C-alpha cells in the first residue's frame, strides 16, 4: 500500500456504506440467544452476606450510602425488599437495571438478602431511605 495515498475518505465511505436504505420491515427478532439458561433452583443456596456484597458497589457497604441517586438498603423491612425485587423482575416496577439484577436471583436469594438487610442498622445520616 502506498502510504502517501490517504484512504481516509474511502474508509469513511466504507463506514457509511453500512447505512440501510429504507427501514427494513423485519419481523420482531427472537430474544438474543444467550448461554443456556441456568436453573437457579438447582444451585446450592447462597447466604445473605454474600448476596448483599453484590449490591454494595451501588447501594453502599453494608447497605448504607449517602447518595442522591442510590438508596440505602440497610434496615429495609424484609417484605418490602422482597416485593420490590419481585416487582422489578416482572417489570411491574420500572427500572433501568434492577430488573436485570432481580432476574439473576431466585426467590430464595431474595429472602436471604431481605433477612440480612432488615437486621442491619439504618443509615444514621440522610439520603438513605426510599
Amino acid at each position: 500500500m502506498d502510504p502517501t495515498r490517504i484512504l481516509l475518505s474511502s474508509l469513511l465511505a466504507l463506514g457509511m456504506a453500512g447505512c440501510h436504505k429504507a427501514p427494513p420491515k423485519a419481523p420482531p427478532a427472537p430474544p438474543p440467544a444467550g448461554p443456556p439458561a441456568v436453573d437457579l433452583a438447582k444451585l446450592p443456596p447462597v447466604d445473605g452476606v454474600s448476596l448483599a456484597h453484590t449490591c454494595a458497589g451501588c447501594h453502599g457497604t453494608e447497605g448504607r450510602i449517602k447518595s442522591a441517586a442510590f438508596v440505602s438498603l440497610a434496615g429495609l423491612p424484609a417484605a418490602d425488599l422482597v416485593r420490590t425485587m419481585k416487582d422489578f423482575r416482572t417489570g411491574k416496577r420500572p427500572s433501568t437495571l434492577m430488573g436485570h439484577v432481580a432476574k439473576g436471583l431466585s426467590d430464595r436469594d431474595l429472602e436471604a438478602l431481605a433477612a440480612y438487610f432488615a437486621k442491619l442498622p439504618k443509615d444514621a445520616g440522610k439520603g438513605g431511605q426510599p
Partner: protein
Amino acid sequence: MKRRDALTLLGLGSLALAGLPRLGGNTPRKGRVVIVGGGVGGATLAKYLRLLDPGLHVTLVERNPIYIRPYGSTEVLTGHITMKDLDVTYDALHETYGVEVLIDAAVGLDPVKKLLRTAGKKELPYDRLVVSPGIQLDYGAIPGYSAQVAETRIPSGWIPGAQTALLAKQLQAMRPGGLFVLVAPPNPYRCPPGPYERAALVTEWLQRHNPTAKVIVADPKDAFVTDETMLLGWNRLYRYNPPDDYAKKLAAKVEVKRHSEGGPITWIRAKDGGKVKRLEAGSLQIHTEGGVLKADVVNVVPPMKAATLAFDLGLTDAAGWCPVDRRTFKSTKVPDVHVIGDSCIADAMPKSGFSANSQAKVAARAIVEELAGRPVPEPVWENTCYALAGMHYGLFVADVFRLVDGKIARTNGPDRYLPLDASPAQIRLGARYQQAWLRTFTQDVFE
C-alpha cells in the same frame, strides 16, 4: 517502577512489620494476609477482610502512594474533570479499617517459607497472599508502537497517568477539522465498553469545540459488549449510520435514523479492514488492513495481559492470564496465593472494576472461612459496566453470576443491556446513575 526510593510506610505499617500485634489484640499465626496491588481488587479485599474479621492482620503493598482510578478517566480528555479528580488515597483503609499500607513494590516470593519480597528489601510473611496487580499494556504487539512512543507521541492512557494528561492536551490542541483515531484492542481487555465510550465522549466534545473534526475507531473485532445500544446512541447523537447488519437488527426493535450525510464518527470493524497492522509515530499514519489513516491525534488501546508481577510470581498461563479456582480465587499455579481482578481468568465476568470488587469480596469470604477452618461459602458475583454514549446518554451491561460446573456463569438470561426501546428519561437517568456510581463505587472500595 516509579518510586523505588520512596518506601513510605504509612502509620501502623512499621509496627506490623516489626511483628507487633495490631488492632483486635490477638495475632493468630494463621491470620496474616498480605495483599499486593492497592487498586480496585486489592483495596476492596483489604477493607472487606477487616470488616469480616477484625482479628485478621492485613497488609496492603502498593507501589504508588496515590491510586489514579481508571474508571471515569476518559472524562479528563473532555475537560469534564481534571487529573486531580482521579486521585484516591489509602487514608480511610488505614484509619477506618486498620489496614497496614506499605508503599513499596513487590518483586518476588518464597512459596515454601511463604514470604513476599519487595523492592525495598522487605520480606513479608503471609498465611495467604492475594495479588491484584491489574494489567500490563503490550505496546510491542503493534509494530511501530512502544512504551516510549506511548509516553511521547501516541498515548494510551489505559492505565491512567501522564499519558492521559498528554492525550487530553493533544485533543484540545488538535487542528480544526483534524482526525482523531482510536485503535481498539482485541479481546480480552480491561473495560469492554470503554474504548467506544471514549470515542463517543471525544466526538461529543469535538462537536462543540472542533465541529469539522472526525473520529475513527479502528477495531480488530467485529462486535463489542453493549454494541447495539452504543451504536444506537451514536445514531441519535452523532448522525452515525450503523453497518447494515446492525442497522437491520436494531430496526427490528427501534427506529434507526438514516442520515443522508454521515456524522463525524466512524467504526471500522475487522471485516471492514479495521485491524491495525502498524503505526508510524512520526507521521501519525495508521496502517490498517483496509488502508492508511492520516491522523492528527491517535489513542491506542493496545492488547493486554496480566501485570508484570503476575509473570514474575509464576502465576500466569500460556495466554498471559492467571488461572484460579473460581470458588476461592486461589492460584492453580502457586499454593496459598490468590489472584483477583483484571489479571485473573474469570470466564463470563469481564475485566472491570465492578468485577474486581465483586471477586475481592468472594475471595475475602473464602479466606476468612478457610483460615478459621470452616467450609468456603457458595459464591455469587455481580458486574455492571455503565457506559456513556454522551454525557447525558447512559447505557450499561448488568449481570449476576454463579458458580456452575466450576466456571463463572451468568444467571440473568438475555436481559443484560439498556433496552433498545428505553425512553429518553431512562437514558438520561442512566447517565445520572453512571456519574453517581463513580462516587458510590469508590466509597465501597476505598472508604
